[in-house]
């Protein structure tokens, strides 16, 4: 009883035998990490018995959207080569994530895309020409974000994530059962805004879903140089939210995981971080040369795990898709592409005076002066021309 040796002074008057080691006074057990941990390996549905549980209509819809998305990527890439787009960051190979993100949301929900996610916006119903406005360069955002509840494409990485959290939080304060789904890439997870957004979301229990498309590269930098985390999905645990790991080329699995996360958020369960393992088949953009940082062999292994191919095989094997169905999907995609091509080949009508129209609710005196200057220059130009 009296044998313990300690340099700690007993408080005066304390009973000598009452001492017990205790945790620090402020400490208390917090969230149990176990239920937050992601799957041990990426969740897959295609090729498993779970496909039988999926709604055949959803499967067919996913297939049609994937085919359309693949054709959209090809067309946008072609438009870039023709000089009709300033730049196009392709999602060829990532169509399952793009499409599933759009389809997992209800109309009243909000999508927060990164600059690469025009396909998700198109799959949600946005006019492709409006989706591509930023990349054509005739304006920054080609649509009213409130119309389809799609935030402007965000070029600064991960900065749209706190917007999604704030919007979801505001909706919840108002009593609306609206969910925000925010998209980011593997590189974006290194940004401070990723951390702050996830932390705010968890603290506020905001109804938001974060979808990380881990496509292997941030332009040229592979994931190994981006993070030492066990997986990106594991990062969720540190914030006190569940992490999910899914095969990003399995459209049905991505749709399932996102739908579960959206439902959970809508019911007040708080945020979820989803990491979808996928691959960027094309270079970062048309301006990039991917052969400088990766071999063809790697690309070929991913081509064999192509999201369109995987779904097509599964549906064909299950008798949910036949030659007619494939042809109908291809024709639908071709019609979309032809229409997009035709519209993008027309020069956009630009009014340079728009440059001053929306900087403030009302032009400042200085902007009125500068607008008058440009007006005079334009008038002189047209007189000379």
């Amino acid at each position: 009883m009296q044998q313990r040796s300690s340099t700690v002074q007993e408080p005066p008057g304390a009973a000598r035998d009452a001492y017990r080691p205790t945790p620090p006074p402020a400490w208390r057990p917090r969230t149990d990490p176990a239920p937050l941990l992601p799957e041990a390996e990426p969740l897959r549905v295609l090729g498993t018995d779970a496909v039988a549980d999926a709604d055949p209509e959803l499967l067919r819809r996913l297939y049609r959207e994937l085919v359309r998305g693949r054709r959209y990527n090809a067309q946008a890439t072609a438009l870039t080569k023709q000089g009709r787009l300033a730049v196009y960051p392709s999602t060829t190979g990532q169509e399952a994530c793009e499409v599933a993100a759009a389809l997992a949301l209800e109309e009243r929900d909000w999508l927060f895309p990164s600059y690469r996610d025009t396909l998700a916006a198109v799959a949600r119903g946005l006019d492709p020409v409006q989706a591509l406005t930023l990349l054509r360069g005739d304006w920054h955002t080609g649509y009213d974000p409130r119309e389809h509840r799609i935030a402007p494409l965000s070029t600064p990485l991960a900065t749209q994530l706190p917007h999604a959290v704030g919007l979801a939080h505001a909706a919840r304060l108002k009593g609306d059962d609206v969910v925000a789904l925010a998209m980011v890439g593997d590189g974006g997870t290194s940004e401070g805004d990723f951390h702050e957004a996830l932390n705010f979301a968890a603290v506020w229990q905001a109804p938001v879903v974060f979808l990380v498309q881990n496509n292997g590269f941030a332009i040229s930098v592979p994931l190994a140089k981006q993070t030492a985390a066990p997986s990106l999905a594991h990062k969720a645990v540190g914030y006190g939210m569940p992490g999910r790991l899914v095969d990003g080329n399995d459209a049905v699995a991505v749709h399932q995981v996102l739908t579960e996360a959206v439902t959970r958020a809508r019911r007040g369960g708080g945020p979820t971080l989803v990491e979808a393992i996928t691959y960027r088949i094309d270079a970062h953009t048309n301006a990039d040369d991917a052969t400088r940082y990766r071999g063809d062999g790697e690309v070929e292994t991913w081509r064999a795990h192509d999201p369109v191919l995987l779904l097509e095989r599964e549906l064909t094997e299950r008798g949910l898709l036949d030659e007619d169905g494939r042809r109908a999907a291809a024709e639908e995609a071709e019609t979309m592409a032809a229409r997009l091509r035709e519209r993008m080949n027309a020069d956009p009508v630009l009014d340079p005076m728009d440059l001053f129209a929306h900087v403030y609710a009302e032009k400042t005196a200085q902007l009125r002066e500068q607008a008058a200057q440009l007006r005079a220059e334009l008038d002189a130009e047209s007189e000379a021309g």
Partner: protein
Amino acid sequence: MTTHATARPAAKAAAKPATMAQALQRAMRDAMAEDPTVHVMGEDVGTLGGVFRVTDGLAKEFGEDRCTDTPLAEAGILGTAVGMAMYGLRPVVEMQFDAFAYPAFEQLISHVSRMRNRTRGAMPMPLVVRVPYGGGIGGVEHHSDSSEAYYMATPGLHVVTPATVEDAYGLLRAAIASDDPVVFLEPKRLYWSKSDWSPEAPSAVEPIGKAVVRRRGTSATLITYGPSLPVCMEAAEAATAEGWDLEVVDLRSLVPFDDETVCASVRRTGRAVVVHESAGFGGPGGEIAARVTERCFHHLEAPVLRVAGFDIPYPPPMLERHHLPGVDRVLDAVARLQWEAGS
């Protein structure tokens, strides 16, 4: 917008003089009472009432959903405020100190200032970023910066700074009511400045973008704002002993800039000195001097001079008095306005 009627019971007849901090608190309080979409958020703004007590009592009166203690992350605070504004709220964000606002710069510059323009007016950003700024309070490093030039250089923002208790109320009400984002710079060494302003009869909501002549004079114009206004007023009084009758213009709004009031004054006096704490090189004074020279050249008897902070990182508190523009430095500049040549 008119003078706001108070909802509070009448205070004791002889109300104590109010401070700028109290006027700012009252402005938020009245805005929150009138408009349920106004939300205050920031570090320590709730239970504590802010480190300067400017949000004192708001969480108690309106609840923590309306006056929210956020995690300690400025980019996250402003980033989530952007999302809240996208959903129709009017966030009033507090940055705890000038230099602590820097992590939020990307959100401010890349999103807050551009969202309206980017979306052709479909998505305005009706939010206020309150930033206590400037020195003179004996603050250690990162607690005394004059960061206004950074904000002024960003199109799409309004940049407003009160110098009086009355304006603190009137301008903050206007900032919260504005459909454009406002960086609201609060001169922290004037937080405890007092006036007879009474929360029971709040001042009028002031329009943003209007400078005001604080002292009429004929010899030269001191152009200033925020924490330097009291310095200029004192300098103007002292200058009478030298036979100078100085006019003092309080800009109140750096963006939009009130060329009209400033130039009307300079044309009357023919001489001008711009006074601010912010570093001179690349500071607001350069822009102001250029604007005045471009517009008033033929009325000027002397070059427009600047009295500014030195081009150094903000000094440690025991040396800050050497850095801050004081009355003597202002009077020295006035003395250099080529009086012999002009007379």
